[in-house]
C-alpha cells in the first residue's frame, strides 16, 4: 500500500475514533428531565410542568399550548395528546425521544383511580401510591434511551 494511501486511511480512522472516545470520556452533553404531569378530572387534558434540557424530545409539543423558557429549562404545557379513553378505562402514554442521563417524571391521576396496568421502557422503575385524592406514580431512571411510560387506569364509578 502506498504510504500516502496508508496515511489517508489512518487519518480516516482517527476521525472515526473521535466520537467513540468522546463518548467514553463523557464529553457528550447530559440530558435531564424532571417533570410533573397532572391529569385533569374526567378529561384528556393534562398539565406538563417541570425541567428538561431539550424539549424537542417531546413529540406532542407541536399540538399543544406550551411555554419553554430557554434560560431556565422550565416547561409549561397543557396538552390533550397524552390521554385517550380506552373502553371503560383511560390510557396515558408518555413517550420521549432521546437519551436521558437522568429521568424523573411524576404522574398525578385524579380521584381514587385504580391502576390497571403499567408499562415502562427498559431502565425505568416506578413507585405508586394514593394520596390526597390522587393516584401518584413516580417514575425514575438513569441513562435511558427513548423512555416511554404507558399507564392504564380506571376512574371510580360515580354515585
Amino acid at each position, binding site marked *: 500500500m502506498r504510504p500516502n494511501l496508508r496515511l489517508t486511511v489512518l487519518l480516516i480512522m482517527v476521525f472515526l475514533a473521535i466520537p467513540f472516545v468522546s463518548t*467514553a470520556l463523557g464529553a457528550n452533553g*447530559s440530558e*435531564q428531565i424532571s417533570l410533573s404531569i397532572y391529569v385533569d378530572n374526567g378529561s384528556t387534558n393534562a398539565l406538563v410542568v417541570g425541567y428538561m434540557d431539550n424539549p424537542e424530545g417531546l413529540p406532542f409539543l407541536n399540538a399543544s399550548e406550551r411555554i419553554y423558557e430557554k434560560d*431556565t429549562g422550565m416547561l409549561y404545557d397543557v396538552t390533550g395528546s397524552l390521554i385517550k379513553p380506552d373502553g371503560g378505562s383511560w390510557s396515558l402514554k408518555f413517550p420521549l425521544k432521546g437519551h436521558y442521563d437522568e429521568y424523573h417524571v411524576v404522574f398525578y391521576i385524579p380521584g*381514587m383511580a385504580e*391502576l390497571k396496568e403499567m408499562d415502562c421502557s427498559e*431502565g425505568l422503575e416506578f*413507585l405508586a401510591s394514593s394520596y390526597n385524592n390522587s393516584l401518584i406514580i413516580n417514575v425514575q431512571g438513569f441513562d435511558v434511551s427513548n423512555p416511554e411510560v404507558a399507564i392504564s387506569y380506571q376512574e371510580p364509578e360515580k354515585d
Partner: protein
Amino acid sequence: MVKVDRITTCLGLMVLLAILTGISYAQSSYGQSSYAQPGCAQPMPPDRASSPDLADPGSSEGRMMHKEGLPPMGVPVEMIVGGGGFALQNNETHLLRLNVVRLSPLEPEQIRDLLDSNKSIEEIRDAIKAEEGQSLYRGNMKLDDVVYPLTNIRVRPSGDNATVVDADLALPGSSPTDQTSVVGHIMATVYLSKGGWIGEGQLNVNSTAQKGSYHVLLDMMGHSHTKIFVTKKESQGSEERGVKK
C-alpha cells in the same frame, strides 16, 4: 520507508484499540445503574392497585407504597443543580451526578383547579410561580452506579452569584424521608465564573461500599452541561485535580 510503514501500522493499531475501548466503555460504564431494570410491564392486581395501604414487594420494577415512602412531591419550579461527569479516586476516576430540584408545594387539586379555570398557559405559569409557601427540595446523587436519595436538603445563597447545596445521603433504595437511613453528607458551593457555573465541595460516605471522603469539583456550562469531578482523599492528605474550564 520501512520505518514509516511500521510507525503507520502502529498508529493504526492504537487508533483501532481506542475505538474498541470507547465502544466497550460506553456500553458498560453507565449500564449498571441501580435503577436499571428490564422495564416494568405488569398488570396490576385489582386488590393491590386499589389498596394504598398495602405495599407490594413482589416486583422489583414497581411498587405500591405509602405516600410517605415517595420522594417529596410538588411542582418542579427550578433546577438548582443538575449534571454529571467523572470522578477520581487514588488516581482513578469516579462518576458523580448531583441533581437538586426546587419544588413548589402546590397540591394536585390546586393544579387541577387551574386547569379547570380555563386560564391561559401563561396565567397558569404565573400562578405556579406566585405560589407562596416554603419551597421543597428533591434530589439525588449518583456515585459511579450507586444512587443515593438526598434528604434534609438545604439551599442557601452565599455571597454574590453563589449557591450552597447541603444535603444528607440516604441509603440507596430507601425513602428520602427515612431519617434513620442517612449514610453520608454532601456540601457543594456553586458559583458563576467567566460565563459558566463552577463549584466545589465535600462528600463523605459513611456506611456503604463507597465509604470515604471525596473532594467534589463541578464544572457546569449552562444548565445542560454539568461535569462533576470527584477525587477521593488520601488518608495522609488530599489530592486535588484541576477543573478544565
